[in-house]
């Protein structure tokens, strides 16, 4: 248990450091890389909780697929460097206010709901295996699962239609 705690503390430090690094770095590519590190650290958290399937999926989907596309967009637009001056003057006060609201919400939840089991110590061994997740996806959460897949399909078709070659086909 103590090794788990030490591991958790180190990983938590890394996760927070990478998140802060992502926010503070002036180069968008570095920000994206910090975010990749953060995702990977979160994946290790899932491993610590005994959910290898979710951990590996986290790495594959977020770190492996989505962030690569982010990097693509950043590099293709050539917008790595942030301008020195802020473009949106109202952004900073709004961000401070919203962060404060989020913190209050988090504090409220932690101080009121700790007893009812939001922070649990027992690993999710029974629900972490691929079989368990598959069964849940195809029984209890079948409808949300299908709705999500239809949403993704719609997004995909939309992207294809938007970028489609209009000269050749003429009907898109």
């Amino acid at each position, binding site marked *: 248990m103590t090794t788990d705690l030490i591991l958790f503390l180190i990983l938590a430090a890394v996760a927070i450091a990478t998140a802060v690094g992502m926010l503070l770095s002036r180069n968008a590519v570095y920000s994206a890389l910090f975010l990749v590190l953060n995702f990977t650290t979160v994946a290790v958290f899932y491993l610590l909780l005994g959910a290898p*399937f979710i951990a*590996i999926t986290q790495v594959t989907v977020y*770190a*492996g697929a989505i962030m*690569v596309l982010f*990097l*693509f967009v950043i590099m293709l637009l050539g917008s790595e460097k942030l301008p020195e001056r802020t473009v949106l003057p109202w952004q900073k006060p709004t961000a401070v206010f919203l962060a404060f609201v989020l913190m209050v919400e988090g504090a409220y939840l932690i101080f009121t709901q700790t007893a009812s089991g939001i922070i649990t110590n027992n690993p999710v061994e029974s629900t972490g295996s691929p079989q368990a997740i598959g069964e849940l996806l195809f029984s209890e959460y079948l409808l949300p699962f299908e709705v999500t897949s239809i949403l993704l399909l719609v997004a995909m078709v939309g992207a294809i239609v938007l970028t489609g070659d209009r000269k050749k086909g003429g009907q898109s």
Partner: protein
Amino acid sequence: MDSALFWEMVIKALILILVLLTGFAYLTYYERRGLARIQSRVGPNRAGPAGLLQPVADAVKLIFKEEFIPGKAYKLVFILAPIITVVPAILITATVPWGGVVNIGGREVMLSIADVNVGVLYIMSVASIAVYGVVLGGWASNNKYAMMGGLRSTAQMVSYELALGLSFVGVILLANSMRMSEIVEAQRNLWFVVIQPVGAIVFFFATLAELNRGPFDMPEAEQELSAGYNVEYSGMKFALFFMAEYTKMVSISAIIATLFFGGFRGPWVDAVPGLGPLYMFIKIFLILFLMIWVRASWPRIRYDRLMDFGWKIMLPLSLALVFISAIGILFAELYGDMWMWLVPILSIVAGAIAVHTINLSLRRKANAR
């Protein structure tokens, strides 16, 4: 975890890394000799008997080459990129079983590093991390050609990852498990290449594209595309990219052997478990020859056709194969095991349709000119 287990893991990991790195060195020799043979040349034959010391000579040469970092490069990422490319190439084999349980000095030793229950997914995720080395190497060089090359290779890798992942699904369905050792166990009587032949072919080509190799070797196209992400790299850093490619070739051959060719299984392997690694070695050797053969025989595919092939042929075909595998398994459960043969028959039909589509598209292009 007791200390003996810890040391067992460390020793196994070290042995695997050493084997992979030696495999990388001698794979370059194997490839050069093989290519030479196919092109009726002799190949490297000066360093040592039959040129066997050639990899050592190459290594010495590359270590002593000047390392050049462009002045405007993003230095940290520039140095990091080759490392990010090499490390996944070595890590990816961690879940591959090299043999059954062997008795070494009274201790039962399992001949695999990590036999986890998400072994196949682990391979997918490590393969998807490997993309970063390429894209960052291109970007950090701060050179338009390198960046375009990096984006080109990355787009290719990301596109073919889909076909790769879907051909994994067929195997997972057939084996009813994502654990690599259970996939090997499920092939005790029949290799999956017999049940899902087209799946094996799709997997093979997807891995070739994933490796940036064979007919998909855009970074090698110095003449027309000015190489690619590695254009600014020199010396040992360039060698690291090279090493990643060849180490990945060995790793992926091991994965193909495990998924489709029965892994470490072979005659008498149950009686003599020590034979497992030997069978693995033979299978890897043959699959590597296939890769070299493909590289020697086929011209490089044009980039737009490469993307068309990935998205319009490989992806629908691998989706169809997943569907066919699922139908075959369902029928086999309902009406008896003979219905399993539906899978290879339908797969070959689907493959034939795909080949016909390629022919059609090529013909239309020829007429358009």
